[in-house]
């Protein structure tokens, strides 16, 4: 992203703000983004904001993964270490893609080029990049082996390997296998076909928009009496950006309305969970929005199979029944029941099951739970104290968003440097995350929360209200904050 891009983007933002009678400065103030200059690509103001004290701490640091979490952490380490000795292992040249933009690509707001960024553009000066895949981990002896047989030793290791999208677990499309959000996913697209899509990969997001447009054309031939059915799923695992399935549903809804064919489509959300959102306040707000928009939904429906030939999705539907009296606990038992149910679809958007990459999950660094077991506050591995994890791969509740990484990577850098200096770990992650929940084209509900399971808004505004201001932040501000603030400067 060059300066011209930023100027164009800001110019567009200024035009939209002017139409609302507001300056950019006022808008940023209202949005609570104190470091507006950071978003503008300035550098002098940034330097003034945070005083960086370099340390002479020494140690070979190995980072597994060159996505947002890995690259931002490397960048920040180079800021704070006088003589950094950092190696990143990352085979995928698109690993640094702007993933939060995938919903916008899927909804036809952005072209895919907006979110494709080259790994090599974000490798900090002096950091060694090994373009191979780490496949074997030997934490007892502090080394990692790559697919090309390279043995890389370390004193400290940071696991930022992201996660696997596990389409393999879904019967009928298991040939799609497991994949990452970036890179060549042509096989996945081929397996999914013309009625099934997923914005969880960059290429898949582009394909989602193509399929959505085709289905909108089909909807013009349907009727309210014989509507098409669009299904959006949410799986039984933690996922990156828990709001993403609803975001793409809302964008599809907006596009259908735009085309004047909304009444010809039944919109159905099928989630494994028993609520719209884990935070009660946001659950209520999202439920209200679903009712307002005429969406249907099924709780406790986990996608198991896809029969592409018949356009049938098979779900594991769960419910509870009253069981026998428990005389010791003085209550009736609750008996979980489940059965397979088939639902026909015309358009199926899949949020796939997700888990840590297999080579990590099955290594001594991983855990049976499927993620890297770290202290959720310090991000330090429970067993191997010279190992840390950050981002999607870490076993941290509510931690799989770019907003979480923005808090985590600073904590991790402070802690690893303290350890290198022989000090106690000083920093703690408090579980902050943010989900800009797109409710339609032009409005966003900015769901911010942490482990208190309460809304934690930056501003004294009702966080459950959908606002155009947050849409502008989502469209114009968050990308430069990620790329310039985190990947390029390591300061945001």
């Amino acid at each position, binding site marked *: 992203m060059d300066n011209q891009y930023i100027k164009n983007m800001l110019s567009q933002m200024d035009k939209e703000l002017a139409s609302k009678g507001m300056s950019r400065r006022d808008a940023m103030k209202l949005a609570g983004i104190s470091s507006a200059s950071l978003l503008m690509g300035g550098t002098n103001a940034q330097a003034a904001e945070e005083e960086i004290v370099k340390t002479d701490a020494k140690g070979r640091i190995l980072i597994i993964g060159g996505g947002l979490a890995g690259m931002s952490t490397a960048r920040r380490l180079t800021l704070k270490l006088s003589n950094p000795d950092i190696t990143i292992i990352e085979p995928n040249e698109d690993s640094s893609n702007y993933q939060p933009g995938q919903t916008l690509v899927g909804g036809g707001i952005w072209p895919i080029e907006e979110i494709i960024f080259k790994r090599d553009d974000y490798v900090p000066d002096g950091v060694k990049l090994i373009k191979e895949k780490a496949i074997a981990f030997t934490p007892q002896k502090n080394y990692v082996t790559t697919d090309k047989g390279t043995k890389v030793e370390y004193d400290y290791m940071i696991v930022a390997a992201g996660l696997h999208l596990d389409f393999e677990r879904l019967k009928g499309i298991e040939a799609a296998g497991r994949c990452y959000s970036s890179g060549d996913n042509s096989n996945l697209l081929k397996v999914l076909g013309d009625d099934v899509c997923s914005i969880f990969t960059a290429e898949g997001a582009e394909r989602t928009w193509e399929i959505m447009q085709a289905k909108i054309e089909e909807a013009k031939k349907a009727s309210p009496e014989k509507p098409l059915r669009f299904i959006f799923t949410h799986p039984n695992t933690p996922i990156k950006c828990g709001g993403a399935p609803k975001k793409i549903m809302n964008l599809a809804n907006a596009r259908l309305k735009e085309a004047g064919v909304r009444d010809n489509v039944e919109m159905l959300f099928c989630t494994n969970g028993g609520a719209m959102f884990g935070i009660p306040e946001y659950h209520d707000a999202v439920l209200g929005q679903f009712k307002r928009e005429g969406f249907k939904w099924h709780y406790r429906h986990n996608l198991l199979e896809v029969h592409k030939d018949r356009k049938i999705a098979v779900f594991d539907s769960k419910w509870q029944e009253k069981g026998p009296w*428990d005389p010791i606990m003085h209550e009736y038992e609750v008996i979980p029941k489940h059965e397979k149910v088939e639902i026909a679809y015309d358009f199926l958007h899949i949020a796939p099951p997700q888990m840590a990459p297999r080579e990590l999950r099955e290594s001594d660094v991983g855990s049976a739970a499927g993620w890297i077991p770290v202290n959720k506050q310090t991000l330090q591995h429970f067993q191997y104290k010279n190992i840390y994890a950050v981002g999607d791969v870490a076993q941290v509740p*509510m931690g*799989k968003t770019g907003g979480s990484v923005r808090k985590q990577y600073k904590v991790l850098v402070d802690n690893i440097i303290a350890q290198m200096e022989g000090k106690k770990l000083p920093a703690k992650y408090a579980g902050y995350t943010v989900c800009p929940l797109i409710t339609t084209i032009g409005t966003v509900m900015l769901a911010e929360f942490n482990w208190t399971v309460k809304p934690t808004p930056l501003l004294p505004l009702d966080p459950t209200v959908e606002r155009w201001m947050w849409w502008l932040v989502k469209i114009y501000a968050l990308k430069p904050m990620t790329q310039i603030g985190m990947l390029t400067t390591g300061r945001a």
Partner: protein
Amino acid sequence: MQVKFEFVNYNEELDIFELDENNYLLELDEEQTKTYELLKDVDLHLYNWFQKSDFFTEWVKEEVYPESIEKKFAICDINDISFRRFFFFKVTSGDIHYDYFMKLFGFIEESDWQDREYVGNKILDQLRVKRKELLMELVEDDTEV
């Protein structure tokens, strides 16, 4: 003040807790009553206080389970304050117990995606450790370990 206790006995061989169907009354003195009133709303603090108090273990040794050295037991109920979920929780237990333990053990999830069985088993994993903390044993010299 009189406090009514119910107990569970630990069957080491089967690794299970068995309910003692009897009720036992303990008379608290004035100081102990004050402490009880202070702690009664914080269930585990109340448990810990009795568990660590000499007067309580002396009473158990003499009045509740006399001549039962090496017996392992735990408190099941104190008046209307129940701890039985710690010893008898199972995956089919009511939602109220899930809420209690998820809060106690700090289970936090972004969305309500979990299966009841998955969370129930996570709770049982934590309870294996917690039960050891709650367990008491009558010993020869002192009254409790």
